[in-house]
């Protein structure tokens, strides 16, 4: 996750997702922002905190097989640059979404729940917890 260009690609991917959603003719701006936030958090939750193991064989005799991607990152070391970056982006997206939904209650609740689903698994206290 810290190889060259990965963070830029990630941010561009979010931007691309938002532009495509924004192009849906009948969707309003608040709905588009909430959709962006929800889809981003759902993908992040699935790819970083649900799928376990590696999509290819590793020579570590199956050690990584039971770990999620988030737990495998940087060999399990906490508070690395990649981890900070991947923790901050959902928060920034959430703040933007809250702003563009004019702090509407319904959107606020949905976005907050969605944000928590990707923040809680990132806590160091929950490393390896099932």
């Amino acid at each position, binding site marked *: 996750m810290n190889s060259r260009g990965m963070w830029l690609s990630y941010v561009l991917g979010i931007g691309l997702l938002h*532009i*495509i959603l*924004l*192009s*849906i*003719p009948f969707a309003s701006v608040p709905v588009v922002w909430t959709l962006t936030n929800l889809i981003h958090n759902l993908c992040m939750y699935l790819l970083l905190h649900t799928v376990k193991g590696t999509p290819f064989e590793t020579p570590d005799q199956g050690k990584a097989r039971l770990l999620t991607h988030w737990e495998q990152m940087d060999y399990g070391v906490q508070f690395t640059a990649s981890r900070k970056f991947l923790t901050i982006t959902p928060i920034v997206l959430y703040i933007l979404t809250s702003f563009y939904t004019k702090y509407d209650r319904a959107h606020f609740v949905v976005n907050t729940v969605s944000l928590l689903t990707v923040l809680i698994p990132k806590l160091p206290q929950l490393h390896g917890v099932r």
Partner: protein
Amino acid sequence: YQYLLITGIYVLEPWEKSLFNSILFSAIAMVIYTSYVFV
């Protein structure tokens, strides 16, 4: 050829290529249409 190589769909099967192209071009059409309406 460059389009196939850069998007990576060079290695896909024909039906997957068609699926990818239809999704991509409909998304581009949507972006153009909405931009036009918006502007």
